[in-house]
């Protein structure tokens, strides 16, 4: 683990080397943004979350101890940021259907899926379908699945990142896959 070059950079940063932090930031920012984007479905919110993640890394630097891979620690912070952010009332609207628009104009995951992202980027239709299916997952299932498929973290690492047991991660990922399969079928059916 000590051979992890990111850990060496983080230790250098802890000892006062600011360039080491810049290097870590440049190396991981895109991955963190994409994780947050897939998590929340809104690019501007995702960028805010990614920035908050790196600010927390900066704040925690003095207390940093390499107990896991750097990326495990980084995505643990990112997951906390995402899960906390989506707990805020402005993102909470569980009874809303995938296609509904909120009257107050505020954007949550579901609105973002069909408005912000589609407006700003030319995603293909399948991306849109996958985003909808992802948005329909409960937050913790989505986090576990993203960390597994996207981040390629082990169940043990994911457990550390989202604060649950390895066995619970196994169940979360299984349920996420199940629900994703059902939602994909449903959304594909709707779009035809």
């Amino acid at each position, binding site marked *: 683990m000590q051979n992890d070059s990111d850990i060496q950079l983080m230790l250098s940063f802890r000892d006062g080397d600011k360039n080491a932090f810049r290097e870590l930031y440049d190396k991981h920012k895109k991955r963190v*943004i994409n994780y947050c984007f897939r998590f929340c479905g809104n690019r501007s919110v995702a960028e805010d979350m*990614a920035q908050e993640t790196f*600010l927390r890394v900066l704040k925690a630097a003095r207390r940093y101890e390499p107990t896991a891979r750097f990326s495990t620690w980084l995505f643990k912070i990112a997951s906390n940021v995402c899960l906390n952010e989506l707990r805020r009332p402005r993102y909470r609207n569980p009874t809303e259907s995938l296609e509904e628009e909120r009257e107050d104009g505020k954007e949550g995951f579901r609105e973002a899926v069909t408005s912000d992202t589609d407006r700003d980027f030319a995603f293909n239709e399948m991306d849109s379908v996958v985003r909808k299916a992802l948005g329909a997952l409960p937050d913790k299932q989505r986090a576990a699945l993203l960390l597994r498929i996207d981040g390629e973290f082990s169940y043990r690492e994911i457990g550390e990142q989202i604060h649950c047991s390895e066995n619970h991660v196994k169940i979360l990922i299984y349920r996420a896959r199940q629900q994703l*399969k059902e939602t994909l079928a449903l959304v594909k059916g709707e779009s035809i």
Partner: protein
Amino acid sequence: MIKGCIKEEDLSAFTDGELSGPKSRRVEEHLVNCLECREKLAEMKASDGLFRSFAEVEPSADFDRSFWKKVRELEDTRGKARWFRLPWGLPRPVLASGFAVLLVFALVFNKEAGQPVEKEEVFMAEHMELLNEFELIQHLDLLEDWETIKDMKENT
């Protein structure tokens, strides 16, 4: 489905390479003979593949600028916080408050220390004339000593 089919959650863990060696081998053996489980596994892998091919976003043009601005703001706040703290970790306002409390105590106790002598001082000031004739007054009681007065009378 044949008897002893793999639980779907185990199939999911198998996809992720998270099953232990013996359990993983059992799944592999089962898959050879079970079309249904093979199809389930293929479905899982396909949806994972779909998921992996999800388009990535690039950081916006403003992302770096706004991030480093936040970093500078954080450092400014920390700089101010550091100024507030003395080298041994005591915040300056706490130290200042401590001095203020000490000053108030000093004033109060100093004032109280002067108070007990105040009455005596006033009494003495009012009877300074008597004090000037202290020697005379001190011997006045002799005149009230009846034995002495009697002796004086007899002698005379």
